[in-house]
């Protein structure tokens, strides 16, 4: 994990310990912290829906996946008949819980900005996210600058308190803005050519060691990049400038990369597509499917809170209706999103050793008539449809 910063290691450790402790505390309330969850089916790491499984949990982690059979000791087991267990959904394009706004426009190149600084763990957005099955989010600084700063990746619910809190990464991918959003009338650059000239010079400086540390580590391939693009041209430009330097590149672009599939297929970049709304054009809606079929890693984004909590799954459903493979769509809102955020070692898949962040759906998560029945974060149930109101007695509603 070369990209993990030391501080985040520490935070991680804290989170894990906290999780473990709270797990212990809540162990008596097996309802809230079961030792096993029995579901009819579950979403596998490759995106398919497999047969019946028991998911055993231990210390906030997934301990094992057992075949469906009678369990001898039924205490502390949560049964969800007919339900589908899915890894907690991840929104990789979000400004959730931002305290104040994330637009900082003083400088067009400002790598020192950190999204974590605007993070408000008590924000109501997180509660809404949890109710929609979103258990982790990447919070990005607004990409209105050429170099906009570092992202943060957080969990939307806390194991013990119900607050969002456990920070998966505070020094996430560095955000670059391309396209018209970064051009302003009151400061350079004002145009695409100006932006490109500036970027060339900034990256040149980074390589020669005369730029901010983040840019330097990006230029030396030690940091991920998150590139916000407006049109296909930007994607090409972004790939050719920043993309080839960064450790891993995620490109956020929704409308129009038809012509670039070949080029993208040659890179290891993740394309972040979405959110999709009902009003979007056929061309846009087909985007995710086209990219995924070309073998490109696609993550779908819901853009909470600009969009509601339904947005992430709606995006996936629309992508599937417009040609995306179902398994790939499930991956796109779980493991691929985790990869784009650089946290795929922790979340995004139901696999032993991963954080026990689970959503129990009444059916296939891609179906819009499936409901969220329960949500677990770090093995603790933080939401239950049955006890919609009693859960809130915890004081967080």
């Amino acid at each position, binding site marked *: 994990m070369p990209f993990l910063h030391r501080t985040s290691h520490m935070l991680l450790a804290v989170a894990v310990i906290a999780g473990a402790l709270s797990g212990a505390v809540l162990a008596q309330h097996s309802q809230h912290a079961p030792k096993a969850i029995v579901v009819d089916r579950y979403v596998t790491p490759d995106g398919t829906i497999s047969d019946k499984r028991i998911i055993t949990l231990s210390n906030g982690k997934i301990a094992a996946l057992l075949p469906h059979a009678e369990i001898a000791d039924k205490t502390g087991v949560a049964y969800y008949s007919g339900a589908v267990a899915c890894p907690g959904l991840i929104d990789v394009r979000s400004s959730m819980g931002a305290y104040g706004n994330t637009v900082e426009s003083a400088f067009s190149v400002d790598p020192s900005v950190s999204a974590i600084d605007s993070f408000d763990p008590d924000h109501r957005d997180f509660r809404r996210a949890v109710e929609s099955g979103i258990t982790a989010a990447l919070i990005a600084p607004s990409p209105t600058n050429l170099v906009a700063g570092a992202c943060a990746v957080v969990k939307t619910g806390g194991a013990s308190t119900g607050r969002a809190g456990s920070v998966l990464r505070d020094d996430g991918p560095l955000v670059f803005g391309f396209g018209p959003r970064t051009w302003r009338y009151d400061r350079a650059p004002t145009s695409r050519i100006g932006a490109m000239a500036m970027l060339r010079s900034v990256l040149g400086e980074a390589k020669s060691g005369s730029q901010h540390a983040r840019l330097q580590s990006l230029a030396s391939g030690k940091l991920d990049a998150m590139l916000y693009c407006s049109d296909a041209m930007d994607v090409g430009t972004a790939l050719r400038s920043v993309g080839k330097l960064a450790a891993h590149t995620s490109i956020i672009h929704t409308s*129009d990369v*038809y012509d670039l599939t070949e080029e993208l297929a040659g890179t290891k970049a993740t394309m972040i597509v979405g959110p999709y709304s009902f009003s979007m*054009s*056929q*061309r846009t809606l*087909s985007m995710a499917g086209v990219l995924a079929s070309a073998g490109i890693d696609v993550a779908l984004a819901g853009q909470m809170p600009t969009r509601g909590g339904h947005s992430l799954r709606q995006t996936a459903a629309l992508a599937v209706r417009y040609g995306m493979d179902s398994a790939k769509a499930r991956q796109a809102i779980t493991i691929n999103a985790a990869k784009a955020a650089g946290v795929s070692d922790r979340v995004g898949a139901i696999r032993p050793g991963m954080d026990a962040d689970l959503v129990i759906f009444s059916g296939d998560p891609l179906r819009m008539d499936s409901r969220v029945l329960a949500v677990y974060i770090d093995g603790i149930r933080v939401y239950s449809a049955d006890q919609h109101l009693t859960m809130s007695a915890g004081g967080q509603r």
Partner: protein
Amino acid sequence: MNRRLSIQTIIIALGAAFVVAPALASPPAKIALKGGRIIPVVGEDIPVGTVLIEHGKIKAVGKDVEIPYDAMVIDISGKVVMPGMIDAHSSRGLDIRNENLDVTPFLDVYDAIDPSKLYFEDALRDGVTSIHAIVGNNCVIGGLSRVIHPIGITPDEMTQQPSVSLKLSVSPQRGSDRMAQLATFRETFRELGEYLENLAEKKYEESLEKKDEKIKVGPDEAKKLGKDLIKPEDYDDKHRNLVKLTRGQLGAFVYAGRAGDVAAAASLAKEHGFFKRTTLVLGASCYKAIDEVKSANRPVVLDSKLLYREENPITGKITETFIPRVYADAGVAFSLLPSSNTSLAERYLNYQAARCVRNGVSRQAALEAITINPARALGIGDRFGSIETGKTANLVVMSGDPLDFSSWVDLVYINGIRAYERDDDIRLKQLLGEEKPEVAEPAKDEKGNGEAAGDKAAKADTDSAEDKSEETSEKAEKKKE
């Protein structure tokens, strides 16, 4: 402001001198255009032949026409003579092309024609001998149109045919609401019906009054009885033209801007009894409704924008459709319009026809689209639009084939009068560097007026600020579409 004024004055003065002089000269009774290629449009081309004009009419056309001893013989060997071109739908000779109200059937373009517009001079220079002056598309029911020629200093002098048609538009231009547009039509014609009933009632009552009798019947009966008592002069100004329209006594130019408007235009015309006299003025995208246009079987006037681009909703690839080709392939007779923008090419009707040929429309169909088709659409096909014996001598002599873009209009005859001669076209020569401007060189450097005036004059239709805004708004209209 001063400067503009002076420019305008000069332009008008120059324009008047230029346009009027030939018009006023009394023409020789007999003219023979001899030795040129004749494109009569109706009938075969005559490689070398003579057109004989007598008292403003075409007396004879053919290879071996006997030229009377007293005819003025003009040798046009090596040149081409064709019928004067006809602009089937133009608002450019009007001061303002649209009235501010929706329903104005009582208006007549007669009152809006501005003979001093440079447009007329340009039209002449471009070989257009008849212009259907009509209000713009931004109306529900516009006013009466008329066919004019581009010479003369009063609208009366210019008129070839008054009261040609009433302008109607089923496409919303003013707002963006077609529902309101069609509702206005409904209300207008309903009100017309009510008016006619009331008028009948009133006439009946009047007739009784004359006979000093008292009313014997109820209103409903009176309306029936009075129907035949109405005389044409009884209609008021507001309704007169509508009555004529619904009785087929007037033509109708119905503008349909989008494909979906074609059916609405046809059914409107059918419903109110003027379908047989309807000409469809179609916007670019209307070619999609070609089936409906074809089954309507009415004359069609196409927008000057001949190329339609469409983007594939998925791939984004652009397909181009050459619009006249669609109509030609469907066997629909269409008329072309010159572009009202000042493009150096598309403002020539013969260039528009050349574009058609370039894109696979037959030469004959293309030539008809700028001559006889518009004449027929305007109901003047018996007098104009082709070189045939007995027709009005509206002729254009070109230096070469009309569809060759390097051909120039050399001579224009209107009613047998020589209305234009390229050798005398000072402005053209100036633009081509063939002649120095008449205004002395130093004067213009000081004021910047003299030559500027000359130049500006040559620019089609940019003589005043009004015109500019007009064109701008027209562009906006097109954009909207």
